[in-house]
């Protein structure tokens, strides 16, 4: 099928950036070490902070470093699509017998798949070798984690697609992308697990879409979500994915009505 081919092509494309992948792995690993030690100091003072034990907190750190590139947590937009909108090349894309949103979603899933293998596995393995992590022994939990991470990537894509489409109106959406990326860093749990946030902020942050990117998958991995809470978490992610993708379609149809292609 067409979209599978797009995803496979994107997977292969990112597989060729070997030096960049290696550099990314090194950076994620260094950050993993630094954050792990600060969390150890924090949980040393408050052993049950946020309902996590120290081993669970450490696992959260390394899950975050493994998913940072996969779910593009620090990135607010889709640079390539934004460039194509600004330059007008998007007109060619709209002529293609493929849906714009599905095309870019497929490409993003291919990228995420490669980066899960290329940039996710090594930091997690290094973390597991150097710190006492609370990794699940049950293969089924790993499967739930992968499903949850996949839903997280879809929510992440849906948000970045909306930011990219804003280029139809703003032309330069890099400022919006930056602010969106910052919100994502903060409200995904990357800066600090959302359950550790003080009182009302913790409850609010866990209802926002960004929680689907890291907080929910990490909770699934470290066993903080089992049974009904696990299904609830996946449903939460799926609901945001559907809602944001639908919003993306609405904006897309408004944007394509707006496009005027010059020249003949």
């Amino acid at each position: 099928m067409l979209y599978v081919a797009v995803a496979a092509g994107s997977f292969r494309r990112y597989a060729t950036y070997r030096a960049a992948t290696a550099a990314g792995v090194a950076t994620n690993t260094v950050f993993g070490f630094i954050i792990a030690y600060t969390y150890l100091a924090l949980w040393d003072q408050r052993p049950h902070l946020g309902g996590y034990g120290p081993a669970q907190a450490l696992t959260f750190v390394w899950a975050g470093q493994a998913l940072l590139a996969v779910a593009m947590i620090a990135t607010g937009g889709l640079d390539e699509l934004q460039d194509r909108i600004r330059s007008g090349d998007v007109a060619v894309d709209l002529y293609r017998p493929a849906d714009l949103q599905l095309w870019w979603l497929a490409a993003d899933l291919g990228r995420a798949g490669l980066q899960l293998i290329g940039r996710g596995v090594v930091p997690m393995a290094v973390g597991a070798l150097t710190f006492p992590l609370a990794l699940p022994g049950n293969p089924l939990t790993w499967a739930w984690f992968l499903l949850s991470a996949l839903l997280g990537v879809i929510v992440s894509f849906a948000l970045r697609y909306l930011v990219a489409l804003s280029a139809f109106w703003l032309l330069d959406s890099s400022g919006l992308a930056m602010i969106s990326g910052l919100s994502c860093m903060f409200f995904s749990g990357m800066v600090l697990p959302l359950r550790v946030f003080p009182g009302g902020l913790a409850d609010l942050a866990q209802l926002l879409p960004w929680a689907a990117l890291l907080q929910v998958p990490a909770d699934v991995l470290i066993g903080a979500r089992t049974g009904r809470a696990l299904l609830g978490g996946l449903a939460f992610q799926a609901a945001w994915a559907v809602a944001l993708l639908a919003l993306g379609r609405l904006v897309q149809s408004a944007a394509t009505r707006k496009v005027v292609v010059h020249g003949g």
Partner: protein
Amino acid sequence: MASTRPGWDDDGADGRLRAVGHALFAFGLIAWMWVRSTLAYRTSFVLMTFGNFAASGLDFVAILLMFSRVDALGGFTLPEVAFLYGTCSLALGLADLLVGNVERLGARIRDGTLDTLLLRPVPVYVQIAADRFALRRLGRTTQGLLVLLWSVGRLDVEWTAGRVLMVPLMAVCGAVIFGAVYTVGAAFQFWAQDAAELQNSLTYGGNALLQYPPTVFARDLVRGVTFIVPLAFVNWLPALWLLGRPYPLGLPVWTAFLGPAVAALMAAGAALAWRHGVRAYRSTGS
């Protein structure tokens, strides 16, 4: 090419001084050109500066959130951690503003535009450092400075002349040390063009490390950033002296004042690495 550089042919200190002056003047000119070009898009500039300010502020928000749950981290209070945070943010912010753009070298090599820079009668390093000079990076510098000023007002130390002088000295030496890391990272891109992200682990990673007290980290990590990549001289050693705290490795007190020497050594090393990189560069040609 060499003969077109003013002062290159003259021997002696006078010629060298004139060459340095020429390089600084060229840096100023290129930077000013980029400032004028960014100010043409005022809304974007304001948004990006705010974003830069907020991006670096996010780390401090994390620290504030941590201290909403605990009174001390690794035995250090909030003003003390804020002092560490402010000093290293300011140092990194200055280095990032002045020479941070050298990390674009890999992209320049890939698209072949480095060759254009090699032909111009201005040192390549100056051109690369001033390339796309981004005033918005004042966001990080300002944010670090604000946190630093806030912490200075709250620290429980006696502000002798030595302590007061130590603060700007830390900012300058720290900026030189981070600048050297940026330069070595860029020089490495002469061989590995896609590895721009690698130096982030030392610049932004170093920043993430140095904003927490060394007591938080494993001994080996502290040893590594003291003796191998001496980032500890950006703020840990001088700041702990200023705060009257012992350094975990039990180094003698005078090591707190080695910042300028370490900065000078690292700058010299970076200059050598850069020169070696430029000499090894073979254009892709046409």
